């Protein structure tokens, strides 16, 4: 029995791990071409915050923590080891020795401190500064009263201690996001505001060339501390290429990965072509598309009305409208996120029950409302489908299709947008932890002017449970913490603060020249592709 189990586990491992060869057998060398439509904005890890530069920055820089390739499992990166104090407030990281920046200097604990101080400093204008709010002394730095985080201490050149002002179970994730990448002070000071064009890190690749508007070339870091990584010698990112053109070039063998994915116009044609069957890769995303209902604006203050909306929306049809590039959702968390409740059934599509609920709320004749939506395809089409579904139970929703910034601004006002379809704006997780799907978009902290909690749902009881869950910092409490979060999100659904509609799936393609497990081409964290682990078949 044990033996068969072991054999089964081994087979499973072999199938999910690097095939056909074992990781250590893969020869380094070769190159690939990745195409993008837009120019790369910046490669400064404190600033970069879009899905195009996200994985590039991860290849150029390292943080204390990272994730196993293709998964959401934390692993040590520049930290060789760490300990967490019993109260969950003091993290002590032992650094790897002999790790060198691309400029040849060794990385030490001073660099860790400098990098964290830099990202918290308001002068850096980092969009990620808020993630570091739990570090002791953050408020003083954010207010401009101090230059240095009180909680970050250099113990010796290879030990850094970080003290938090409150227990934070997500802190290791925070140490893995790009904003916590370790940067060398001398290079940042040399280039100033242009550091993002001249990045220097400890990552698997270094920036060799950047011709604005044309291409970036990444070259293998020969001194990279992780043996056998990266697999490729060189990556060329060609920018300014429309997704359709990128796909044509891939089909002709001129490019290897269309960075923007498969364009919607070509989606059905390509996915149905047997020739590309093995080259198309589908992956989950830590994304949820949802309709918010502003609980401060009647009649959405009544839970029955919100539940009725949940039951009225035909999610399967909406998924068909976008060519099946998503899976229907019944709760806020996406399926690949820890804490997802796979047994929860949610509100099934049932217009009759929805009508009955409306009647129960005294709105049997329906009512008029507004549905705000971002005005780029496919969002207006999705909004029209929702509009038709709502009309079937007597709710007349007028669609307000606006520019992204306007929708976000309307959602951030307490009395402006009764309903918003979140598509194209919110919410993709910053890191694979359920708390990232709560605080800003469902918690009381986000229900403020200019916030992202567009339902204005604020349940202090749940907030207290959330704080309690995030105080479980002991890794042994992992399961308990997940369970706590699961309950919180199901409670949110009991109040029907949102109508979750779908979780987007990512579809990408690779050329036949490239090897590597499918998971790294749709990596949930190194978005869109984990460049470090892609290998070239022509050098094997």
């Amino acid at each position, binding site marked *: 029995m044990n033996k068969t189990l072991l054999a089964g586990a081994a087979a499973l491992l072999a199938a999910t791990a690097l095939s056909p060869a074992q990781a250590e057998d893969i020869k380094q060398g070769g190159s690939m071409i990745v195409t993008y439509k837009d*120019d790369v904005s910046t490669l400064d890890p404190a600033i970069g915050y879009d899905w195009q530069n996200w994985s590039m920055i991860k290849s150029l820089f390292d943080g204390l923590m990272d994730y196993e390739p293709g998964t959401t499992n934390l692993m040590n990166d520049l930290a060789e080891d760490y300990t967490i104090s019993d109260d969950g407030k003091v993290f002590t990281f032992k650094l790897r020795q002999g790790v060198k920046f691309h400029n040849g200097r060794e990385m030490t604990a001073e660099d860790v401190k400098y990098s964290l101080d830099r990202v918290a400093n308001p002068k850096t204008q980092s969009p990620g*500064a808020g993630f570091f709010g739990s570090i002791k002394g953050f408020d003083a730095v*954010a207010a401009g009263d101090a230059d240095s985080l009180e909680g970050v201490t250099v113990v010796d050149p290879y030990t850094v201690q970080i003290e938090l002002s409150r227990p934070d179970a997500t802190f290791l994730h925070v140490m893995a996001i790009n904003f916590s990448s370790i940067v060398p002070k001398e290079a940042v000071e040399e280039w100033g*505001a242009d550091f993002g064009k001249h990045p220097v890190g400890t990552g698997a690749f270094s920036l060799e060339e950047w011709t604005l508007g044309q291409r970036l070339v990444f070259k293998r870091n020969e001194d990279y501390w992780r043996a056998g990584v990266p697999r490729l010698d060189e990556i060329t990112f060609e920018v300014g290429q429309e997704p359709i*053109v990128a796909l044509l070039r891939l089909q002709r063998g001129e490019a290897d990965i269309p960075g923007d994915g498969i364009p919607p116009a070509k989606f059905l044609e390509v996915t149905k072509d047997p020739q590309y069957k093995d080259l198309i890769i589908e992956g989950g995303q830590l994304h949820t598309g949802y309709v918010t209902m502003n609980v401060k604006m009647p009649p959405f203050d009544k839970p029955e009305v919100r539940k009725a909306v949940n039951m009225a929306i035909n999610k399967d049809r909406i998924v068909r409208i976008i060519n099946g590039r998503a899976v229907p959702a019944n709760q806020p968390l996406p399926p690949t996120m820890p804490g997802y409740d796979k047994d929860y059934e949610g509100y099934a599509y049932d217009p009759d029950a929805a009508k009955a609920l409306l009647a129960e709320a005294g709105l049997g004749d329906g009512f008029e409302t507004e549905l705000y939506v971002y005005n780029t395809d496919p969002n207006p089409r999705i909004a029209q489908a929702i509009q038709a579904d709502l009309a079937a139970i007597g709710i007349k929703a007028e669609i307000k299709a606006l520019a992204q910034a306007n929708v976000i601004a309307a959602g951030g006002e307490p009395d402006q947008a009764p309903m918003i379809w979140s598509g194209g704006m919110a919410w993709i997780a910053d890191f694979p932890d359920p708390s990232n799907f709560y605080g800003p978009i469902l918690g009381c902290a986000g229900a403020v002017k200019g916030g992202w909690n567009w339902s204005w749902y604020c349940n202090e009881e749940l907030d207290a449970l959330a704080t309690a869950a995030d105080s479980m910092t002991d890794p042994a409490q992992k399961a308990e913490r997940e369970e706590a979060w699961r309950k919180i999100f199901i409670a949110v659904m009991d109040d029907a603060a949102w109508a979750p509609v779908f979780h987007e799936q990512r579809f990408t393609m690779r050329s036949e020249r490239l090897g590597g497990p499918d998971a790294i081409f749709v990596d949930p964290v190194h978005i869109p592709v984990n460049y470090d682990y892609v290998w070239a078949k022509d050098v094997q």
Partner: protein
Amino acid sequence: MGGYVLRRILQSLLILLGISFLTFILLYLIPADPARQIAGRSATAQTVENIREQLGLNLPFYQQYFRYLTGLLQGDLGRSYLQKTEVGELIWSRLPATLLLMAGAIVSELAIGLTMGLVAALRRNTATDTSLMVLSFVGVSSPQFVIGILLLYVFSVQLGWFPIGGYGTFRHMVLPSLTLGLLGAGWYSRMMRSAMIDVLRQDFIRTARAKGLKRWQVLFGHAMPNALLPVIAMIGIDIGLFMSGIVVVESVFGWPGIGQLAWQAIQRVDIPIIMGVTLVSAFAIVLGNFLADLIAPLIDPRIKLR
């Protein structure tokens, strides 16, 4: 002449100032909040406020405009909100590609337009004439993104003669130049045709023929130079047409010029880049018209600048 040039330079400066003011107002009125955009969705209210202050976005409109103008006079077009790079550097690095594309477009529109016009004039009122003029009409009225995608599909995807977009070699240049030049070629063929027909009726042509010159000598020695006059005056104005065309053509062909830069910036509401590209385009248009006016009297002594 000197007075004329000075007056035109002053006029041009006023026009540019006006354009900068109008663009600035328009971009100021866009409801997008740049500070919030830079700060991203995870930012605290304090971060947003800090950024607003650092960029001077909390100042009243006239002060913001004044700040921009002061920078402009020192050659500083500001820093892109999203690309975090000097706008001047971004435009400067992309300008050669745009100029190259325009040069290609001028060559192709002249080559195609003048030939078509000449042939049509010589074969006046025949089937050749009619079909050429219909063709030029199609060229003038087709949207450039349609022509571009069509050419790309036929010559690159199906026939494989040219690369599918991109930049670098002569072969990369052919299709985008054609696409950008076709509109002008349509105009030029019509102008050339009517100018040629007009010139061929003139007395000096009859004289030239009467003194025994060969047909090609009459055509290229006497008729052409006179028929070309109005055409050359138009090249300067073309620069204005191109400026709107490059946004489309560069995006279709992945040509790394300022049109593509503008298109990306517009989609992402990167205000400093939109402002910078608008000003550079306006400058090019004003300069093009100015040069066209200056060159005119050199070609045709009957024109006097006053």
